[in-house]
């Protein structure tokens, strides 16, 4: 907006900022690769392959879902609701659904040992969150999950601005997304059933054999974005940074949310200031903006208020 280079460090490469595709690819894929490959072994281990009846077990899995409609519907609702909440993602949906299923199950002791209800709760919620996550992504431009953060990046690359204007001006794309999710779930189910016996065996392949193929695809993918070899370096550095974040206990989705939403927020912020002649009152002088601002403050401050209240109570001091 101002024609000034910012945070480039004198580098021509950073004139347009850090590229999205290599950064996100490296952050998620390479960091996961570092963990996966260094741990060794394989995703699953099985000593006696000959005793496994793959097709029979596939059908058993189908019947496990069909014979538990209440658990399935409950997991769908939990997954969709969690998906609507921005930034939480599949693991949270799975965890919440698993916990609820375990508490409501009469056979809670079997959870953690391959109980079908536990697996069903996790996977159904994980899939259901995609539909819920699409809502904040398209409506507000806030990704409902890490996958939606990637989708947001795709929107930006194609010049689409997520938010109310997208719903008004590109409703056809919104419907295409909805139909895409529905059809992809249907086709995915069919394809997965067909290839699940084969795919299950892939989990037995040692990580040291799968990892190089994945790295190949990551580096090529990062290069293909703009055919700039430095993008591969960005992916590498992002992967190392992502690993350090995960090791230190920081979630990666927050970086992606800030990375994608940051420019949008800044543009809206500066536009508002320009319209209001530099006055910050413009952010709270309308009922909707004031409510949203208060919600932001309450959301950020609530965890601290609760802890401070507990601290004052435990020390015998009361606030009059």
């Amino acid at each position, binding site marked *: 907006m101002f024609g000034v280079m910012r945070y480039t460090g004198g580098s021509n490469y950073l004139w347009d900022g850090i590229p999205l595709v290599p950064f996100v690819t490296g952050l998620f894929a390479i960091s996961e690769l570092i963990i996966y490959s260094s741990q060794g072994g394989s995703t699953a281990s099985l000593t006696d392959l000959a005793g496994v009846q793959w097709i029979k077990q596939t059908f058993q899995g189908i019947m496990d879902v069909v014979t538990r409609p209440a658990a399935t519907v409950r997991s769908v609702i939990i997954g969709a609701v969690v998906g609507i909440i921005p930034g939480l993602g599949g693991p949270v949906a799975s965890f919440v659904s698993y916990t609820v299923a375990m508490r409501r199950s009469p056979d809670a002791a079997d959870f953690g040992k391959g109980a079908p209800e536990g697996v069903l709760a996790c996977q159904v919620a994980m899939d259901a969150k995609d539909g819920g996550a699409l809502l904040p992504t398209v409506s507000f431009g806030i990704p409902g999950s890490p996958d939606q953060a990637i989708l947001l990046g795709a929107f930006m690359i194609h010049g689409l601005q997520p938010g109310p204007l997208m719903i008004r001006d590109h409703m056809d794309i919104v419907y295409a997304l909805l139909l895409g999710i529905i059809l992809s779930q249907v086709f995915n189910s069919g394809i997965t059933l067909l290839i699940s016996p084969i795919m299950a065996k892939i989990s037995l392949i040692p990580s040291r054999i799968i990892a190089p193929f994945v790295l190949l695809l990551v580096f090529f993918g990062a290069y293909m974005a703009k055919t700039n070899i430095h993008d591969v*370096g960005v992916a590498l550095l992002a992967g190392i940074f992502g690993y350090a974040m995960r090791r230190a206990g*920081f979630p990666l989705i927050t970086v992606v949310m800030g990375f994608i939403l940051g420019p949008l927020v800044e543009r809206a912020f500066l536009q508002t200031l320009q319209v209001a002649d530099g006055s910050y009152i413009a952010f709270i002088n309308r009922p909707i903006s004031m409510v949203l601002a208060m919600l932001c403050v309450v959301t950020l401050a609530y965890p601290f208020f609760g802890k401070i209240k507990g601290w004052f109570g435990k020390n015998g001091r009361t606030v009059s």
Partner: protein
Amino acid sequence: MKIRIDITLVFETLMVVMVGAMLAAATQYPIGVRVFPLWVGFPTLFLLLYLLFKDVCPHWKFPGRKRPPGEAPAEKVYEDFDATAWRPILITTGWITAYYLLILVVGFFVATPLWLTAFFLWESGLSPVKSILSAAVSSYAVIRSVEAFGIAVWPGAIPKIIPGILGGGIIPPL
């Protein structure tokens, strides 16, 4: 006061330094350019310092729930995985970095099969024949797929030896 150095502490310290440097750099920009970084940077710095302080001085009485006697302290939960030893992490990172440097120098055509063969032989424990075959087939498949999109594959920064395949690539200005 003995401070236990761990990755969380190091990472938070580095983040504090980075955010602090960005805030300092932001003060050099014109007002319209620096306003957003300052608005975002100062709360970020404050929160990072809070986290750092909590980790450096865990014995201080921060507002929170007092643990009943007999209850075990909550273990720090790392996202997604159990933290592994550093040696395999550094080895894996070294391999990934070596692949990138090889690509930079000799290009995808040569670096990919070379690196794959070396990794399969050294780390995966495959036989030489399997390693070479796997590397050759997967390299060919991926490179052909990329070329099918009309994308010129990076040939490497060394002087041109085989046009379009080995050497002759011009590294974009950094």
